[in-house]
């Protein structure tokens, strides 16, 4: 089993490269799944997916490989996790809680957590390779940090204590808690709004059992993601952003002890204009093209000077990546 994680800032074509990588794996006989965490649902466009759980992409291969694709559904993953790991009556209280609603709908919070949960769920389904297309924003690496936040929250002594006792505390005038605890808690409530704090705490006091199980599973997944024999991280970038992205992601990955597998510089203008004599608008267009191509070549050279990791170049395609057929030329160019 292999896990391949694609990272990159927004708009570099990460989803296409991830999908093409999965396609290439499938073509060479493996059972491969591509999971996208993208809220813009770009994989949906690329693979013409209808949504829901993992779906097999219709693909004829002589090698017997299979291509599967899934868009991360935060609500469904969270609901599945609650139902699987909680007693039915408690599960119902959790699923109907107003905070559950806002959490399932929030992009910033649960998405990254549920990606990790979903990788765990999917790893049990017999794929040879899972290709993960991370969130499109500059939040890419948060997806690796949130589990720790969440585990901390769930395990936090404060939340358990305050969450379970706040009603009691109200009645008794907060006498039963240590003075310092009460002070800080009261201040937090004052600033963030009592209503919000209590709703959140109430929710987590119900959810705490789930969260503990979750953080154990997340820890296991993170361990696999750190194992170079199983996982590697690949950075997708474009010529303009190549050096800046490489400096940033290589540092961040190293700090978190993840393996950087390769860089993919996407949308490179490759063809050199012919030394033909043209004039008028054709000349203008060719000058424009040549100018930008030249700047691409310079950017690639500085990336290669910066890194010892493999740098793969992918051409800009005139046609947008749409259906499976348009992923083929990209897949054919992958190493």
């Amino acid at each position, binding site marked *: 089993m292999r896990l391949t994680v694609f990272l990159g800032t927004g708009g570099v074509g990460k989803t296409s490269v991830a999908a093409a990588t999965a396609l290439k794996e499938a073509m060479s006989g493996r059972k491969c799944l591509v999971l996208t965490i993208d809220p*813009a649902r770009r994989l949906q466009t690329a693979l013409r997916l209808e949504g829901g759980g993992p779906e097999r992409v219709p693909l004829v291969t002589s090698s017997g490989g299979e291509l599967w694709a899934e868009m991360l559904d935060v609500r469904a993953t969270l609901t599945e996790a609650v139902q699987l790991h909680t007693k039915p009556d408690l599960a119902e209280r959790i699923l109907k809680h107003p905070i559950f609603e806002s959490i399932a709908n929030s992009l910033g919070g649960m998405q990254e957590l549920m990606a990790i949960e979903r990788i765990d769920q999917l790893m049990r389904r017999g794929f040879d390779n899972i290709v993960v297309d991370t969130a499109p924003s500059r939040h890419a690496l948060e997806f690796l940090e949130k589990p720790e936040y969440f585990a901390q929250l769930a395990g936090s002594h404060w939340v358990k204590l305050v969450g379970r006792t706040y009603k009691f505390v109200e009645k008794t005038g907060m006498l039963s808690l240590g003075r310092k605890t009460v002070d800080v808690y009261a201040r937090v409530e004052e600033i963030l709004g009592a209503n919000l704090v209590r709703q959140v705490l109430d929710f987590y006091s119900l959810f705490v059992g789930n969260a503990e199980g979750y953080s154990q599973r997340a820890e296991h997944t993170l361990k696999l993601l750190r194992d170079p024999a199983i996982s590697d991280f690949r950075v997708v970038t474009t010529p303009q952003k190549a050096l800046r992205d490489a400096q940033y992601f290589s540092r961040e990955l190293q700090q978190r002890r993840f393996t950087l597998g390769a860089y993919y510089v996407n949308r490179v203008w490759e063809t050199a204009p012919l030394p033909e004599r043209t004039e008028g608008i054709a000349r203008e267009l060719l000058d424009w093209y040549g100018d930008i191509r030249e700047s691409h070549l310079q950017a690639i050279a500085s990336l290669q000077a910066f890194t010892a990791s493999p740098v793969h170049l992918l051409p800009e395609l005139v046609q947008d990546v749409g259906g499976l057929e348009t992923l083929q030329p990209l897949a054919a160019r992958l190493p």
Partner: protein
Amino acid sequence: MTAQSRIQIACGKGGVGKTTLALALGMRHAAAGRKVVVVTSHPLPELAVSVSLEGLAQRSPTAARNLFVVHLDPRALLAEVVEANFPVPILARAVLQSDIYKNLVEVAPGLKEFYFLARLQLLAERKSKQNLPDYEILLWDAPATGHFLSTLRAARDFEAYLTGPLAGAGADMKRFFSNAENVAVLPITTLEEMAMEETLDLCRSMRSEFNLRASSVLLNLVSPLAGASPERAEEARRAAESSSDPALHFAVERGVTERERAESIRKSLDAPVIPVPRTRRGSSDVELLERIGSFLEGVWG
């Protein structure tokens, strides 16, 4: 009424050039003598801005005097709120460092977003002692579509949790941000299919949920053909037909597709479209921004 709008929001899909165009537009406003603040809000400031304003003071002293760029980190903003509420720094620190605070801030839906928008409003409305606005224009270099919409929605829904004086502030903020006289939306897109779809979706949501319309749409990184006259486009098509140069074919094919797409955007959004051609980086970023700015004339025209 773009020119009067206090907040202009540069929004769109990730990677379409929101930050660069926001800075170019800001520089242009500033060079024309308007006091401008460009607000970026990316969670990772080191990746937020890929162009530098080095050398602006030499090149355009007026622009340098009037242009301000600030990075607002929603987390840091909240910390400021906490600090402002505690006259005793040691208590503020105790709160900020407590697990319960850190974790609540991470998971509380809408909290950071609410304080972030409140700060934008404050910046846009702030006045000097002479009752002159500190900034005539605030350009918000917004996060990519998904996070941008979730910021607006989270702040809106957060109202439900507000009690006391904050509830009034929440309602006031809602009024401010859904008033087209205060806020102009400047969607930025490339003419790639996915970016276009996302832009159209975004504009639909902005209209139906927040009553805000695009004042003009900036088409970034397009070919010089995208904004050319029909005659020039036809000439280019003929030139490509009689040439075997793949680079020319690429450039023309792209330009022709872009022209069709620009027209369809203009029609579906009923807003002027402003093509900004892709150009190579010049001798300096400031020069690049000036060049880009020269295409943005129509934005407040």
